[in-house]
């Protein structure tokens, strides 16, 4: 067995978009040529400002949106090319946990029905008794006790944390290999986040899971991930070990993001790098480095021509790290 669960190569995902009734449709390049490996058993955190393509990446991997190019190799086969029954089988291997436990659970379904649904769709339970046993086991494993009573409830009867446990139980029931968790705790109160994350990590140990953990919260990514991948406008900016990326960021964008991570300490912050403005639209991606217009380092260097002319490719920068910047290097 390879130590790589997925090999994502040059992945492209475009959305057709029409801005205004008289404009020509233009393509939103949500994921714009992304390559990375997902290692078996790891937690890979995907971070970046909103709109950088995190959700789209997760959806492309689980085939909830179609890709316009590239490949995703899984066990030597290209996920983007499988169809029909094989696709259905593969989908069982890849599950998603979404951000909003209020929206993602159907309010008319009982907890039992929600958690049983994947088994029914994939015809995985051979009898009513097996179905029941597996649903109850999944609920228990997700910390919903007593399972029999929880199974009879409806989403509105549960707290936010409990609902997210239901999403986890439903995602785990087919014993997937990969879980794409898209901001799974962002809607939850801080005091209960830890328990949900701990549960997810425990289940990883027990079920040998791999996580693609999408979050905008860098300190959370740092705490739970083995590696962190930073995206900007659909492209890889930097990838590496979680601690290395947070404490030794090499890309000016990562350095800026890290410099504004809130910490629960009362002291005035020094060394904040405040980027001006917000992420531009992925419709009109400028030539050269797409981060250039907001880049403090480019400005500091007096706007080197290469930044405007050539798109920086991710290049190796030490142990297991890639950085896409012509002037990558440690801080100031």
């Amino acid at each position, binding site marked *: 067995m390879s130590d790589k669960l997925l090999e994502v190569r040059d992945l492209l995902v475009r959305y057709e978009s029409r801005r205004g009734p008289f404009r020509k449709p233009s393509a939103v390049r949500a994921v714009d040529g992304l390559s990375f490996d997902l290692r078996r058993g790891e937690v890979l955190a995907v971070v970046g*400002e*909103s709109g950088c393509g995190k959700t789209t990446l997760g959806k492309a991997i689980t085939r909830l949106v179609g890709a316009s190019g590239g490949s995703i190799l899984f066990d030597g086969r290209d996920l983007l090319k499988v169809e029909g029954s094989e696709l259905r089988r593969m989908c069982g291997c890849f599950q998603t946990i979404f951000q909003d436990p209020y929206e993602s659970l159907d309010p008319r379904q009982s907890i039992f029905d929600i958690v049983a649904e994947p088994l029914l769709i994939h015809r995985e339970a051979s009898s009513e008794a097996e179905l029941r046993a597996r649903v109850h086991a999944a609920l228990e494993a997700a910390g919903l006790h007593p399972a029999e009573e929880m199974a009879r409830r409806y989403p509105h009867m549960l*707290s936010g*944390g409990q609902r997210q446990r239901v999403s986890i139980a439903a995602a785990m029931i087919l014993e997937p290999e990969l879980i794409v968790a898209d901001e799974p705790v962002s809607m939850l*109160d*801080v*005091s*209960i*986040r*830890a*328990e949900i*994350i*701990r549960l997810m990590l425990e289940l990883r140990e027990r079920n040998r899971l791999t996580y693609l953990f999408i979050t*905008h*919260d*860098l*300190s*959370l990514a*740092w*705490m*739970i991930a083995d590696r962190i991948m930073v995206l900007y406008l659909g492209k890889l900016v930097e990838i590496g070990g*979680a*601690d290395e990326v*947070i*404490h030794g960021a090499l890309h000016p964008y990562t350095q*800026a*993001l*890290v410099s*504004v*991570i*809130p*910490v*629960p*300490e*009362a*002291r*005035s*912050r020094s060394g*904040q790098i*405040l*980027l001006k*403005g*917000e*992420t531009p639209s992925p419709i009109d991606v400028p030539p050269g480095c797409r981060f250039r217009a907001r880049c403090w380092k480019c400005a500091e260097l007096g706007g080197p021509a290469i930044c405007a002319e050539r798109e920086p490719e991710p290049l190796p920068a030490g142990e297991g790290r890639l950085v896409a910047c012509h002037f990558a290097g440690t801080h100031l």
Partner: protein
Amino acid sequence: MLLEMQDLCVRFASRAGDVQAVRGLSLSMAEGELLGLAGESGSGKTTAAMAIPRLLPRNATVAGGRILFDGEDLLAKGEPEMEALRWKAISVVFQGAMNALNPVQRVGSQIAEAILHHEAATGRDEARRRVEELFELVGIPAARSASYPHEFSGGMRQRAMIAMALACKPRLVIADEPITALDVMIQAQILNLIKRLCSELGLSMILISHDLSVIAETCDRVAIMYAGRLVETGGAREVFESPAHPYTAALLGAFPNVNKERVFVAGIPGNPPSLIEPPRGCGFYERCARRSPGCDEAEPASVDLGGGHVAACPLARGGSR
């Protein structure tokens, strides 16, 4: 003191019974202070703060207490008197208001209208000039006042809401979760703006946030609520460096801190109590790892730790950690 809230109680009528959202809250704030009001959702932050300009929902009743603003009890004022204070003395950046701007009206004219509404003596040209000044003050180019809300990014809309709150030169601004739902970089920009405005204009502000790290970095003083009560208040440095209440300590421990060792945060198992039948004793009793028998019987007395640092827990006296 600019503001003194004494023993405030607020209830909401609901089908399931009365929700005791704020249960005897006492807080004070000096002129020019940036006070952080923190606590997990449902702890009563919004309710307590909106009681000040008396902008509570219809089903709310202020069941007791006083709110002294400049020495005068706001709860004793008639509605016209109160209306004269809103915006001009006390203004609010409502949670989520940046998404509630009128989509078919230019942002600048929405703010100009607010000015004209609250200051009848102002003329249109004067109002327009004020809007342009306000825009510059909050970091939006004056020319953008002719834009529509959808032409603004989230960060700019929030800046515009702050401009609107400042339009009539208030002394106290209440900002309810002003950076929640914004991107980290924009959050940092807005927090810097808030700090700058407070120091440049000598403004007093109550910054409400469920995020302790946001408050830690921004505020001079902090008040932490739980289940409708104040559990701890004090200078930001004292409270964050030596939290005296087990809830404050636990909540602080629930945030990862990239400046410290990379450990898994603990979280706080359990849920807050029902506020329809709130517990007799300490609201945190059920989830408290350091409770002792008796904590659930009577409301814990406030322990004064000096220098304005107060915690509602008997353990506070021992200098808990």
